[in-house]
């Protein structure tokens, strides 16, 4: 028997998905924040025991361990990364401070600045200059680099970002600076702009490089420790790591640009969504993940969640590497309900898990959405909560909502109901904004809901968005771990190159794509994959002259990376056709008599690996189980006696008509009036709006 293991570390739990042939075994244990690799090893030992194997034998039979980590995110949240220095071109010392003028609020004059990763004293410049065409306008002053290193040493700098102007057009100076730094400050890691993000403009590239330099030592140290522990325990292969692009890649590849793991956690869930959705015949998905503090939204189009490079603001820093687009709203079970200047508000502040909602009984005094769900009867005190780990309590909940109601001029139940309505509306608007930015109408999509609180709201939100079909997978509580098993090993990189589409230098295109191909091939073969098995998608970035945002689209697909024969005399014409189609789809118009320009070439390469099974269908005989009980609940249309079902007892074919509540082990699914839930052959829930 061989195994594949997906591991995702969250704030509270470390989740495991073990793929054993066609079977998926899920496991959760507590995270170990002081050294997260401990929790990982502990969980692996439990899984091994479950298989009747020693840890060593178990790991020896593992074909792959795929890991999603939040170390980079935590480093930026806690701002405890490396003491970082930036070396940049003379004249450009302050780009990190300017942020291109961006501020997060246009109304709040008391907005605080982001905590600086590289304060001005650690932003040093060297005389040198490269121009747009890659030519050298001013030679590098090597002594200035050495002087800068001296200043960095005096300041105890531990990690250095090198971000020179137009380095993406010519990386010679950056490479030379790196050599000098290596001589002057041996052992200090360097991050080179043209390697971390090979694209214009300068702020995007330099900021990404600076953040990389800041998180790199922590991420690499963590992964190194984990790799060591795994090796000591008998794991013979490379550790694979989840990237924000939605692909996984070897630890060796990640080590060169650890920024790629930033924001990778949510990407796993999106990958799992695409996989599960496809198995059920749905290729356009709106994925919503509502947990304790946040509501994450993403979309899957034509079965894929395209990663976008560019203006990705994370933790107040611009990180331009390709990321699966996940938008976050501060709305979760812990979101606090309050009245501000006579208006009812929900969130964005959250009670978190400590003290938590009032009904957790952990000392929380402020009413939250979870408390509102309890008031509305959607949750109950009758059964164990969160996998049976504790029971909800209603002491103080009603009083808290009565206090809100007193300010609004009505009673406690109405207050709870309005909080429910409000958080619903907030989420609906957030979804609309997310899809608007992508030019998508949510009504054309199927909603896939996961996270502890997602399924409680899914159907009612779907209704607001004119969505008629909702999926709630049984595996949703460990969806991100499952996603790491779904994700393919992949490398997605680009090289900048600006030229009018009717005057392309084909040799240059071949050279740049060739560089990308060579790099990808080296990493894949290094990880033991067959070069012939590499699936390649060759892409172009294009825009009209003057546009700031380029569109990316596929030019060619191939198996293997050696054949560049698609770069032929015809490529301009094909590029224009493809660009026009995308521009029309995205913006509804194309410009008569104007030719676009290309701004870069991109290569997305991946190798297919075994997938966890997913299926759908409704071949099991339909049954209508009797409810396990009833309770008074308000599912949007006033309080009534509502049927309660126990999720674990519902078998494929089971059908539940709304209004009803299905209590799963880690989540609660609400079947709103006018909706019907059915368990499909795979044991997942399909919620359908009745005509």
């Amino acid at each position, binding site marked *: 028997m061989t195994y594949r293991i997906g591991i995702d570390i969250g704030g509270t739990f470390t989740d495991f998905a073990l793929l054993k042939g066609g079977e998926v075994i899920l496991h959760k244990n507590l995270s170990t924040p002081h050294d997260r690799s401990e929790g990982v090893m502990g969980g692996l030992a439990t899984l091994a025991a479950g298989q009747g194997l020693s840890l060593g034998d178990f790991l020896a039979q593992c074909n792959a361990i795929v890991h999603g980590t939040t170390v980079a995110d935590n480093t930026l949240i806690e701002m405890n990364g490396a003491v970082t220095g930036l070396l940049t071109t003379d004249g450009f010392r302050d780009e990190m401070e300017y942020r*291109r003028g961006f*501020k997060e609020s246009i109304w709040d004059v008391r907005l605080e600045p982001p905590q600086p990763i590289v304060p001005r004293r650690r932003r040093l410049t060297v005389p040198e200059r490269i121009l747009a065409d890659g030519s050298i306008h001013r030679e590098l002053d090597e002594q200035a680099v050495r002087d800068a290193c001296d200043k960095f040493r005096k*300041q105890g700098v531990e990690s250095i970002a090198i971000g020179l102007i137009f380095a993406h057009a010519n990386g010679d100076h950056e490479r030379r600076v790196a050599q000098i730094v290596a001589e002057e400050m041996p052992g200090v890691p360097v991050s080179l702009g043209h390697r971390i993000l090979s694209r*214009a403009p300068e702020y995007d590239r330099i900021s990404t490089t600076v953040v990389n330099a800041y998180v790199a030592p922590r991420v690499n140290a963590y992964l190194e420790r984990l790799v060591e522990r795994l090796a000591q325990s008998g794991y013979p292969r490379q550790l694979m790591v989840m990237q924000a692009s939605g692909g996984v890649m070897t630890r060796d590849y990640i080590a060169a640009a650890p920024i790629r793991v930033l924001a990778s956690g949510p990407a796993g869930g999106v990958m799992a969504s695409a996989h599960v959705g496809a198995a059920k015949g749905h290729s356009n998905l709106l994925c919503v993940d509502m947990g304790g503090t946040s509501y994450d939204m993403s979309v899957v189009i034509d079965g894929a969640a395209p990663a976008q490079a560019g203006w990705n603001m994370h933790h107040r820093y611009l990180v331009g590497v390709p990321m699966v687009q996940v938008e976050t709203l501060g709305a979760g079970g812990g979101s606090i309900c309050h009245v501000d200047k*006579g208006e009812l508000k929900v969130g964005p502040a959250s009670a978190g898990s400590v003290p938590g909602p009032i009904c957790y009984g952990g000392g929380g005094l402020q009413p939250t959405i979870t408390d509102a769900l309890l008031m509305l009867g959607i949750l109950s005190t009758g059964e164990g909560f969160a996998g049976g780990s504790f029971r909800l309590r209603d002491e103080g909940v009603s009083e808290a909502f009565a206090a809100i109601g007193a300010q609004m001029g009505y009673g406690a139940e109405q207050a709870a109901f309005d909080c429910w309505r*409000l958080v619903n509306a*907030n989420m609906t608007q957030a979804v609309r904004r997310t899809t608007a930015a992508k030019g998508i109408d949510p009504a054309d999509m199927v909603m896939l809901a996961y996270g502890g609180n997602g399924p409680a709201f899914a159907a009612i939100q779907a209704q607001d968005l004119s969505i008629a079909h909702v999926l709630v997978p049984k595996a949703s509580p460990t969806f991100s771990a499952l996603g790491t098993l779904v994700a393919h090993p992949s490398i997605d990189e680009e090289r900048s190159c600006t030229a009018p589409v009717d005057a392309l230098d084909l040799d240059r295109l071949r050279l740049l794509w060739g560089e990308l191909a060579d790099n990808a091939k080296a990493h894949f073969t290094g990880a033991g994959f067959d070069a012939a098995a590499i699936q390649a998608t060759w892409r172009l970035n294009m825009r009209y002259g003057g546009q700031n945002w380029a569109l990316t689209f596929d030019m060619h697909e191939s198996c293997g990376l050696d054949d560049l024969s698609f770069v032929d005399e015809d490529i301009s014409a094909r590029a224009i056709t493809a660009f026009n189609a995308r521009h029309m789809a995205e913006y*509804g118009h194309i*410009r008569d008599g104007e030719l676009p320009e290309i701004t870069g070439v991109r290569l997305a390469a991946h190798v297919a690996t075994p997938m966890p099974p997913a299926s759908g269908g409704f071949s099991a005989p339909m049954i209508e189980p009797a409810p396990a009980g009833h309770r008074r609940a308000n599912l949007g249309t006033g309080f009534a006696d509502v049927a309660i079902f126990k999720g674990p007892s519902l078998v494929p074919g089971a059908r539940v008509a709304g209004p009803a509540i299905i209590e799963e082990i880690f989540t609660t699914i609400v079947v709103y009036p006018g909706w019907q839930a059915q368990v499909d052959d795979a044991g997942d829930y399909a919620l359908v709006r009745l005509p």
Partner: protein
Amino acid sequence: MSFELNASLAARRAPLPTTASIDPVTANIIRGALETVCYEATTHLGRAASSPIINQSNERNAAIVDAHGRLAMGSIGTPHLTFVSQLTVRYGLMQQDHFDWGPGDVFVGNDPDHGGGHLPDYNVYAPVYDAAGDLVLIQALQAHQGDTGGKDPGGFTLDATDIFTEGLAIPCLKLVHRGEKRRDAIYLLERNNRFPSFAGDLAAMIGAVEKASASIRAILDKWGSDVVRAAVNQTIETSERQMRQLVSDWRDGSYEATVHIDHDTVGTKDVRVHVACTIAGDQLTVDLTGTDDRPDLVGVWNTFANSRGYIMTQIASTIDPDIVKNEGLFNAVEIILPEGCIAHPPPNKPAALGSFHPACEITEAVCVALSNVAPDRSAPQVYKIGMPNAVIGFDARGQMWMDQGVDCRSMDVSAVQGIDGWGSCPVALGNLLLSQAEDAESRFPVINISRELVTDSGGAGRWRGMPGSRNVKQILEPAIAMAWMVSHDHPISGLEGGEDGSPYLNHFQVGTPDEYRVELTARAQLPAGAVIAYQHGGGAGFAPALLRDPQAVCEDVLDELVSIDAARDRYGVVLTGSLADYSLAVDHAATAALRGERMAA
């Protein structure tokens, strides 16, 4: 086109007629839906437009105006545009029968004498009718155009004596009639614009506003137009109530401020803006009586709609950021703009540069006056820059290019109580993304040599203003450079005893024997290789510099934001050790002694 028209445009509007009653939560939900529509419209425009000023600088804004012409919802972009948008639409509304309004129509307006800001700000708007055929809301979208067809490319003419010098003035022009594009009208606009990218921008604006109208129509269908009317009424009333509540917490009294512009575009000195902000109970009155009204001033006329908008921009930054920005704010504030002064010009005055000055001095004066009652939220939401160095040339094919000079830089970021100035602009402008060297140099024959912060150029204060940047640029081919310099003699005002910001400076032909400082305006033909250097003004300080935490001054010196000399001379802080080896430390005894001496003096 008269003071009377302005008065009727600005007159308070009644709530929308409705029989529906609505609870506050539902009203909020509908407000959120309308806000999202605005967001969708600007997002769509930003992604589809081709001019850098729209797609890169984000100088665009969406607003929803109701059937009575009230601002129902303003969304992202810049507050300066949000609060101007309703008057252009009101003019069209007043003519709706005359101009044959109907479902599926799209209009454009930009005329300063018909409710507009300045000519470059095109306001494209579409009325939305419900199933019964009643007009309920109007979706408006504003964006700054790269050109307006006047005497000079870009729409800013330094010697303009009337609006016609500056370009095409459009009171209200129909671009789409019942869903069909009016190609003749659109071609007229395209013809009156120098830049080929304009056609794409206009198409993007029409596309975005049509898309947004369809979304509004869906909201009307979902909730019913009577309920939506009730929601709009309630959100406007709520904002007015919250605003009045806040004003009633401010200390009653009349607070005055005077701010000067160095000169107009022909050199007339010390152009004056004067404001009195009077608080009586829950009523705030902003009165610009005493503001300059010399009829021969050139270039410094701010249109009526703009003056109102810029006053409101500052007020909005002074209040709780959670109060929803809509007509309720205008209902709560009385604005007095004397006829004939530079904040309320007679018809046909040029308007382009007025959106810089006196617009920003009006904003600044309101800030200085209100800092008496709301010091914790007072920071001027301005750009004290005159006109950046616009560089214009022709490429090999004879096509004109223009580098508008909206480069990355820091300017005018004043401190606010408790927080030093930071970033590159006041928050109100935080949506405008600045141009990058690698984009500009890929497009234009220029090299950005330097754009770093200048040590000691931030206004000193207990909380320090952000230093200004010096942007040095080389022009590789012969080109024309244009600029208008102000804020040298009168830089941005410090508050509560903080120092003023640092002056703006601009030099052409830098490093040659022909180097000169541009003191007033420039329209210079520069040879290939010429270097120009623009020093942006730093932000102002807040509260006396001698009260600044000495350790913070030491940190500033380590970051070379403040020099060792300035630490001593301006902050009264004595440092020991050396900057070169990062060993600086505060000499507390010497600092206390020096500060004691200074305070006694």
